């Protein structure tokens, strides 16, 4: 039960981090330069963007929940379970970021989940 709750926390925090990070970066706008001067001013904008910073916070929650659950559960169980994040992130992209997710994209994501589950078998 404890494990299931923490895995749910990992999956949802990771997906929330993805959605917030994307929202923040879309607000910053397309990065199309490698000039250090411009990148520095972008970095300043990024580090004051509320969406970006909340995204980082969620990634921190993901990371520490992951470490915690690994202190008693097997990685070979936890890792495939967290592959659900691909599905939840995509749902977030569809419903919160209004991205169009075609059938082919869903099919690809499904194969990825299945593949992650298989690579995690001993």
């Amino acid at each position, binding site marked *: 039960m404890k494990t299931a709750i923490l895995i749910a926390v990992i999956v949802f925090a990771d997906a929330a981090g993805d959605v917030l990070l994307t929202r923040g970066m879309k607000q910053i706008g397309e990065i*199309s330069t490698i000039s250090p001067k411009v990148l520095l001013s972008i970095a300043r904008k990024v580090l004051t963007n509320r969406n970006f910073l909340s995204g980082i916070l969620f990634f921190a929650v993901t990371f520490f929940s992951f470490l915690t659950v690994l202190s008693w559960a097997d990685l070979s169980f936890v890792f495939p379970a967290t592959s659900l994040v691909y599905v939840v992130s*995509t749902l977030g992209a569809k419903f919160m970021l209004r991205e169009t997710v075609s059938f*082919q994209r869903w099919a690809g994501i499904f194969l990825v989940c299945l593949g992650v589950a298989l*690579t995690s*078998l001993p």
Partner: protein
Amino acid sequence: MKTYAILALAVLAQATGNVCLSRGMRELSSASSIFALFSQAVGSPAIWIGTALLLLFFFLFAAALSWADLSFVVPAISIEVVINVAFAQYFLKEPVSSVRWLGALLISIGVILVLRTGKQTGKSEIEGAKI
């Protein structure tokens, strides 16, 4: 093209970073406490390089999200699992079973499907001052 280049670089940085971290952590003698382990880790070049590479991965990931769909970038970088499996076998000499390779094959097919959908399918609503 830019998207593919950035994502390829991101995935390579991530996989190489993981190999460095794994090597670094194994070189540590088994420490008695988590604090002892941490202070040993701070002195290990492999762990520093690994951490720097993972930071580089995060910057490239965020940069790609500044123009590409999240539902494109996330499954696209899942190819990292395949590269991690390959690197684990090649550099760390970990045994990789045929079931794992089958999983890697499925991930690769999935990633190819996603890559073929194009990096941006719809304009997102969240541009400008809406949020």
